[in-house]
């Protein structure tokens, strides 16, 4: 028996393409704008969200039959906040340096609408295993966009990738900078992310016109 049925595989692959959480479901835009000035931050955020969304989806899915519908949003919020705080505290006690790196992401993870969005849309109606796959798939789809945006913003805005200079030294005017090239300061600030995400959406929809909404 295969580990994943075809339906299950789709849970992972769909969010990577035609059901991408950022470009199609328009979830998680805020963090996609906020933390993509550097590739490293994008990657850390993507991995953190994968943990939280994977685990959170399973917990919510296990509780789905006992959660009162009237207060389900609050319950979801408590579950995700509890998970994040537990991880944060454990890291602080046993992996302090790692926790320092992740500390700034904690608030961004709790408020990430992708997490509440997937709890609400999927985990409340599906079993734990499928919810787990859905969580992993959606966080992968989210991560892919974050990394693409982070790649362009860091490359064009700072001339570096993962902090390593790609184009030479902008201050000493070496490499590409000796020809008069300048870093684009606009790419550093969040509106640039909106434009990059917009271009991704445009490319994706022109390649697959079925995704274009009628209105």
């Amino acid at each position, binding site marked *: 028996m295969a580990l994943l049925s075809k339906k299950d595989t789709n849970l992972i692959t769909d969010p990577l393409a035609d059901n991408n959480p950022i470009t199609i479901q328009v979830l998680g835009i805020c963090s996609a704008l906020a933390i993509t*000035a550097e590739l490293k931050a994008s990657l850390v955020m993507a991995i953190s969200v994968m943990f939280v969304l994977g685990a959170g989806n399973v917990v919510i899915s296990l509780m789905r039959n006992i959660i009162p519908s009237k207060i389900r949003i609050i319950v979801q919020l408590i579950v995700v906040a509890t998970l994040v705080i537990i991880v944060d505290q454990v890291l602080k006690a046993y992996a*302090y340096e790692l926790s320092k790196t992740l500390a700034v992401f904690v608030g961004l993870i709790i408020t990430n609408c992708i997490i509440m969005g997937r709890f609400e849309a999927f985990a409340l109606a599906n079993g734990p295993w499928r919810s787990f796959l859905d969580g992993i798939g959606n966080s992968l789809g989210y991560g892919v966009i974050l990394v693409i945006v982070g790649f362009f913003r860091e490359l064009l805005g700072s001339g570096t990738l993962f902090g390593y200079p790609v184009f030479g030294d902008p201050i000493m005017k070496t490499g590409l900078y000796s020809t008069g090239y300048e870093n684009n*300061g606009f790419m550093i600030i969040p509106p640039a992310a909106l434009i990059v995400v917009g271009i991704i959406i445009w490319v994706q929809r022109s390649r697959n016109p079925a995704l274009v909404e009628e209105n």
Partner: protein
Amino acid sequence: MANKTDSNVYTVVFAAVMVVVVGSILAFLASALRPNIKENERFEKQQNILYAMGVNENGDDAGSVNFIPTDVVEDEFASYIKEQLVIQGDKITEDNEAYLIDLKKQLAKIKKGEDYKLPVFIGEKDGKKFYIIPMYGKGLWDAIWGFIALDDTMTVQGVYFDHKGETPGLGANIKMRYFMDDFKGETILNGTQYAGIDVAKGNNDPLNNTKDDNEVDALAGATITGNGVSAMIRETVKLYKPYLETIRAK
């Protein structure tokens, strides 16, 4: 979905049980992990103070920030930091636990007009004396803090900045070496006035060759965090001015 989950009684009971369960888990976790976390925070403070006076494991390249390893930091701290002082009004006393003073609480006391304590650490390396002063201020989203090491000419020998929640890739870069290293050699004096050091956008000196302009180059996309750093240094210098006057070589 079953009907019972829609009733008010069920909803209230569920909410109550959930609060109790989640509350107990978090309370248990917090008290179980507290000793470990406290210890880590203590080591971190020692590492930060030593970092500001140049006791760290940084390589020569302008790469990443490398602290003294945690397993030796206690001994190193004891050997490099010769004196820990507490300034309380006109009184200066020695206190070996001065580094545990929480500056945030002391600043709150100042605001309320209560008596407050200001810690200073005197370090010695290669026969040179360092006066290390803690700082605390606010960035864009949350607290920022750090340490600044001065010599008796009021020239900065090193700084360390940290933050709670500045934006990764933008304001969070105040704890990157390329930013902190710029402060080295700058003076906090403008003539004989205590001025501090501004994180200036229009500095036009990206290599930071001019060391007497009380300015370092700002970070792109992090204006408010940078202003926070400027304000933090300015306030700290103001606060410690009476003490700095007593140690300044004239």
